[in-house]
């Protein structure tokens, strides 16, 4: 529907890396037994992925995918407009398992950080080893950006997608702008 708006309406900033708010992204939080075949089947069906990601990894293609959140939690990505239907199908498929699937599309904001200094921009804010040996495409990490919880994963090299709570989207965007300010390239990652 036209009147649905993302937290910051798609703002962007160009510094030592490019920062952009990605707009609305369908998201489903799924808690349950990840070793349950029924669950795996339902998830792959809902997200178009062949299989579930291993721990600390994301399997994402465009607006669809799955991120490993914890041993009993996944974050499913689906196109925003389709989240209702996908969720219904998921809930139906899981009606016999002890699982919780809820729509969190509107509770989150999504950013993309790109450029050869993207690693460094994140390394200024998160206590995570973002060196090339340690953090490669597909790697997913839940941590903090400065003072708020956030999660990010690497798409192709030099591009990260960040998910945070909608209420702090403005804070996170301003943080990323400071971290990406011109002249602040570290030149080590």
């Amino acid at each position, binding site marked *: 529907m036209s009147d649905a708006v993302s937290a910051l309406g798609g703002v962007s900033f160009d510094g030592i890396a490019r920062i952009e708010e990605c707009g609305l992204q369908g998201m489903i939080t799924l808690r349950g037994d990840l070793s349950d075949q029924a669950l795996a089947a339902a998830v792959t069906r809902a997200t178009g992925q062949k299989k579930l990601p291993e721990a600390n990894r994301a399997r994402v293609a465009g607006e669809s995918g799955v991120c490993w959140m914890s041993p009993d939690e996944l974050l499913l990505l689906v196109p925003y407009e389709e989240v209702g239907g996908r969720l219904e199908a998921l809930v139906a498929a899981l009606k016999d398992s002890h699982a*919780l699937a809820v729509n969190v*599309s509107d509770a989150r904001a999504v950013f993309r950080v790109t450029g050869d200094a993207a690693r460094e921009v994140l390394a200024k804010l*998160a206590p995570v080893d973002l060196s090339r040996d340690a953090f490669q495409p597909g790697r997913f990490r839940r941590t903090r950006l400065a003072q708020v919880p956030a999660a990010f994963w690497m798409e192709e090299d030099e591009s990260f997608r960040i998910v945070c709570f*909608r209420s702090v989207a*403005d804070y996170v965007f301003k943080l990323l702008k400071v971290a990406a*300010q011109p*002249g602040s390239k570290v030149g080590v990652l």
Partner: protein
Amino acid sequence: MSTRLPSHGRLIDRSAQVTFTFNGATMRGYAGDTLASALLANDRMMVGRSFKYHRPRGVVASGAEEPNALVGLGQGNRFEPNQRATTTELFDGLTAVSQNHWPSLDFDIGAVNTALARFLPAGFYYKMFIHPQPFWKHVYEPFIRKSAGLGRAPDSEARDADTYEHFHVQTDILVIGGGVAGLLAARNAALSGARVLLIEQTAHWGGRAPVDGGTVDGAPVDKFVEQIVSELETMANVTMRLRCMGAGVYDHGYALGYERLTDHDPDAPGPRHRLWRIRARRIVTATGAIERPLSFAGNDVPGVMLAGAMRDYVVNWGVAPGRRVVVATNNDDAYRTAITLKQAGVDVVRVLDARAAGGGALMEEARSLGIRVDPGRAIAKVSGGKRVKKVAICNQDGIGGAREDLSCDAVAMSGGWSPVVHLWSHCGGKLAWDEDRAHFRPDPDRPPLGADGRGFVVTAGAASGALALDAVLDDAAAAGKAAAKAAGHSPRRGKTPRGETTPEAAMEPVWLMPARADTPLRMKSWLDFQNDVKVSDVQLAAREGYESVEHTKRYTTLGMATDQGKLSNINGLAILADALEAEIPKVGTTTFRPPYTPISMGAIAGEARGEVFQPIRRTPMHDWHERNGADWEPVGHWRRPFTYLRPGETVHDAVNREVKNTRENLGLLDASTLGKLVVKGPDAGRFLDMMYTNMMSTLKVGKCRYGLMCSENGFLIDDGVVARIDEDTWLCHTTTGGAEHIHAHMEEWLQTEWWDWKVHVANLTEQYAQVAVVGPNARKVLETLGGMDLSKEALAFMEWKDGRIGEFDARVYRISFSGELSYEIAVPASKGQAFWDALIEAGRAFGVMPYGTECLHILRAEKGFIMIGDETDGTVIPQDLGLSWAISKKKEDFLGKRAQQRSHMTDPNRWKLVGLETVDGSVLPDGAYAVGEGVNANGQRNTVGRVTSTYHSANLGRGIAMGLVLNGPDRMGEVLEFPGTDGTVFKAKIVDPVVYDKDGEKQNV
């Protein structure tokens, strides 16, 4: 006088002249100068005043250990006090001012303290200024405060013009120090394939080696530096940073790097400082060594300088601190200075070698250059006020009877070298006393321990106590390999570069010069140049029983200056040991604490300033509130409108307007901040029965129930409406800001106590924008939007329903926190603004107004509803608040039930909730206490109750309040006295807390 030499100056670019000012005077230097070298080149010998006696102070060192040459740097929003001239790179337009004097550097009233010095020994203030009692605060202290302190404070309204940032990095090995030892250790570590981060505090690689000379594998040492630097630069697993100081070493391999990005180029873009938060498997400290001064009378006169520093000024910056120099030493290294000076054309008047037998090969070399050397001789006294004029010499083994006067304008002194052990010690590394070199060095057998219980710091080169070039290289090579191995890599074999340098004769410790200097000389022999601590002061402390080195330090302030004792610690320690007739290692050292040298507060704060100082959580309608006059109130990290101000309105007017309008027409509240937790699973009901004092498992699907949560300690921690969504799903509302910690609270119990229960919890707080539509017109406005049936029959009080309202998918809760007809409606957050707009639009016909938190408080107070944080404060149990009805009697157990059975909790004399009505209709002051009879054993007035909420009710036209009162519910009608803080006394009658629509007719329509 001190001047620029025609020769030497490996670090300066004579083709690039730089202009700067010192105390307003314009001076010139070269690119590559430090402020200190430039000042000396301009014959600026005296650069400041000491802390206590305001004595003239000149540059004594050439690096981070400098205690004297501190200046105020920059102007306005870039002014910074106490900047060390020796570590300040010169740049064009630099402005510096000297410190701690009035009216001027050369003429300073405070210098009168020098004359009084004898009356101001260590700790004098503990023995004086005792009477009369008020004088300390009003007379003595203001004077002392004025004369104390060093640099001028930045202006009150100064706002730092620069930005700062942090940077997280992990590495296998961190090497701190880019001298030959650090470079070689880094290379050997890197050859194993380990990730290596090498940081150096100055702007140059190589440290002292190029100044001290010597050869490596036959080539001059500076060539070796060039070659190994370029080798490291080609290694992909090596990161190198100049101007990045190892500031501190912390537990579990954490270290701080303090990078100064634009201090030498203030107009460059980007942050000024970057604080590196480093995690290293192993840390190599190649932090070098610091030369010790000699303790002789007048060793603080400007022009008296460390021998190594004087050598630096000649070799690195082409500056001669004097024309006629006397050298005093107890070791061979100082001869290098004598030789360097001589070769640079400076007249070396005499070398006074305290050792009876003099030195070795270097002494012979000096003599061969025609320098006169007097073995067994010492400095009795240096004369000169603002700069050295002459030196009286005597036998070292004596009391100081002068034999001869030497006229000179500078003195180079060397008491031997001490390894820089700070970073080794920060995290608990222990030291060993080296008898031969008379210094403390790291004890490899007692390193700081890491998370794995093994040592995680290795020292390299001079930092290990290896002072000669060959020993430095051997030690560093081994350190690099050891670190790599410990970090889980296999170091490569390969030969260690062979260092060669003139062999040195043994040094002899000289703690006092001359050895048996009499008291008047000892009272003029400085240990701590900045804080004015003298040999006699330490001896006094020992005499008075301040025997612990910590006592002595604190009593005399030895080592508490901005250099943190880099020059004074060992000398002071030796004097103390001598006074106690104890061995130096027995006396021990004071604790080394981070940072190695002071680091800016800005760098520590990092990016967190101004707009991003702390997160501000915003609801989907935040901007609308902002545009419509919201007077914000911080609630946790959220901001909620306290009220909406219209042009010309006071806050009080606005609140009253909102209150009346909501009762009479229609009010809208942004309730999005309320926590919304979904709890699902076969055991969810059982779980919620433990979480809440109420019975939640029996709640019917489609119904809502108000619930209370207590801590295991029995106290009320949160409340909110719980809705049963389906057979095994509940939705729990929490207070604003309660969402996160109640969510965590639930997860804690599920994960750590009842992990076999089948329950999942998810926090949906931000998925929904929630709006409370409140007032007599609430149903009307929703009906005009169209959609679901919200009639009394279709949705009764305390029921919820999913459906559509106008264009919107919504979940509607028929609940009321105001006593009015009220619907709380949740829509997806992304549509929150659109939904709010629709309500405002449709509401115009019904007199809609948004209302803020203060109106919300008043409406609920009129109904006697409690508010977490007002009626509760962490010491209140539900029973105190007349909420026993919400505590299930049927349940065997719930969190807090057992705790509420303790004697104090069941005490019939607890204060209980009542309404309070002032006799004259006025508003009771917030937090006022009701007084009882008499006073307690401590003479405090006895109290019988207190106000928990108090407001002006626009509806009732008078003040209303709630409070907790001793046996309150049994004392209806009784009048209590509440003294204000200004002497006035308020009288209020105990009444029922519900003062508006007792029978709830309005909310049930």
